């Protein structure tokens, strides 16, 4: 039975989640040098086009179509065949199947867009497009099936992932690490300075992400109900706490509270609460977010010691924040909050933490290895990087024949 309130809510949430991707474009765009800002924004923007086409043709079917062995959906729903306007028997029984499909499409869009921060300022646009098609097909769709697809093995095992901590954040973080290692450093990394060219742009982007994330997490209740309200609250609480703790961590460590730090902390908090949003209470959210701000700050600092050039800290924020969030779900989840969830370690069920750990590990390994393979294939066939000269001149002019600012 289609419920009018649920349908209206999910359609609005889908629009909110879509809006996160241009938000991410600004978040990333402000952090690069001014010769690469358009190329960086374009990565996120054009993914809205690429992934939507893939999703309608085969992506949705592979992720949510009839189960094949717990690991992938079949191609029975190719071109949205059979995905109609009445509710699906398997997913969200009170909204049209197409509403569920388009809500999920927005998650499929933002996930690869998150990875683009790892190879910003040096990747060839054509190679980027091919990478996105392959990654979306061979990494995102299977992972989404494992966790959310009817019959998926991680979901069957009882892994809790409310809105995509593993599928979206750990997968993009692990893939970002593989990508940053294979494409190697930007020219001059460690010698020249890579200073953000427009921090206000980054903060505008972070604000849009914060706003859109309500659709991401509250919408994952898939109904306009108490659970959605609970997830809305935990999302906001964790984000606020993390913005504060990152700011204080940097203040203590470097003597100054920075605006980029507050914005980065907010995003870290949003990432961490994502898997837990509908399974934990507000005070747990406060703790999860507060710890996320500090962990992710330390993760970003560790990058320079580990020697890979993850340009915009996808690993430190999404990989680490997502991992913390997934494990924290195994600590703080409570069936008093959501009877369809499970209790975590702090509520007398240590086994849940193990299940969460397995889901983190499986996601990390799968996303990392698959991204290495895809990147290697693209590198051998068409080359990943622009030439040294193009990199010096900037991607805006060499890849797109445009400049962002003229004076």
């Amino acid at each position, binding site marked *: 039975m289609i419920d009018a309130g649920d349908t209206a809510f999910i359609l609005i949430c889908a629009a909110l989640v879509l809006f996160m991707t241009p938000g991410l474009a600004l978040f990333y765009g402000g952090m690069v040098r001014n010769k690469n800002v358009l190329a960086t924004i374009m990565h996120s923007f054009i993914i809205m086009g690429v992934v939507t086409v893939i999703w309608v043709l085969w992506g949705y079917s592979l992720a949510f179509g009839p189960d094949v062995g717990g690991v992938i959906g079949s191609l029975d729903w190719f071109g949205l065949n059979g995905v109609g306007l009445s509710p699906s028997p398997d997913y969200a029984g009170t909204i049209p199947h197409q509403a569920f499909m388009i809500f999920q499409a927005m998650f499929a869009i933002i996930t690869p867009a998150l990875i683009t921060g790892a190879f910003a300022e040096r990747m060839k646009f054509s190679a980027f497009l091919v990478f996105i098609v392959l990654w979306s097909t061979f990494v995102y769709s299977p992972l989404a099936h494992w966790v959310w697809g009817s019959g998926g093995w991680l979901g069957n095992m009882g892994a809790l992932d409310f809105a995509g901590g593993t599928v979206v954040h750990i997968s993009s973080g692990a893939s970002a690490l593989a990508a940053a290692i294979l494409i190697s450093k930007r020219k001059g990394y460690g010698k020249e*300075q890579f200073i953000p060219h427009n921090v206000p742009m980054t903060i505008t982007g972070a604000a849009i992400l914060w706003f859109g994330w309500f659709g991401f997490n509250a919408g994952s209740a898939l109904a306009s109900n108490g659970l959605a309200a609970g997830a809305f609250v935990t999302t906001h609480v964790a984000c606020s706490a993390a913005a504060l703790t990152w700011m204080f961590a*940097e203040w203590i460590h470097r003597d100054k509270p920075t605006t*980029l730090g507050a914005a980065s902390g907010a995003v870290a908090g949003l990432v961490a609460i994502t898997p837990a949003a509908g399974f934990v209470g507000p005070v747990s959210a406060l703790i999860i977010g507060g710890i996320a701000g500090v962990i992710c700050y330390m993760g970003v600092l560790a990058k320079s010691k580990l020697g890979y050039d993850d340009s915009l800290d996808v690993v430190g924020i999404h990989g680490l924040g997502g991992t913390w969030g997934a494990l924290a779900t195994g600590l703080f989840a409570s069936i008093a909050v959501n009877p369809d969830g499970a209790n975590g370690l702090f509520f007398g069920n240590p086994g849940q933490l193990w299940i969460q750990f397995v889901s983190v590990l499986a996601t990390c390994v799968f996303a990392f290895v698959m991204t290495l393979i895809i990147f290697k294939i693209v590198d051998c066939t068409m080359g990943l990087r622009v030439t040294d000269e193009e990199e010096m001149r900037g991607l805006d002019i060499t890849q797109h024949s445009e400049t962002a600012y003229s004076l």
Partner: protein
Amino acid sequence: MKKIEAIIKPFKLDDVKEGLTEIGVQGMTVSEVKGFGRQRGHTEIYRGAEYKVDFVPKIKLEVVVNSELAPQVVQVIEQKAKTGAIGDGKIFVSGLDEVVRIRTGERGKEAI
């Protein structure tokens, strides 16, 4: 005729401008510049990483006056732009061969 160029701290521009107008200077050109001297640069912090920024923002002021007025101009800039801290800037004085007012074609002192 003399051309006086001064590199000063940006927040001192208003004081210097007022001082110069009071002694009869009728025009000046100002630009935002970057550079370094003994002050060197400053550090910026992005996500916990410190970056040394070598070039500090300054204001470059250019004034052209009669030779007689030049010592007074230098004195005013010196007084008004001084904070006593490192990075107050420098004043350069040089001779000038010719000035032309484009609208009227006047040459030399009349054109200043």
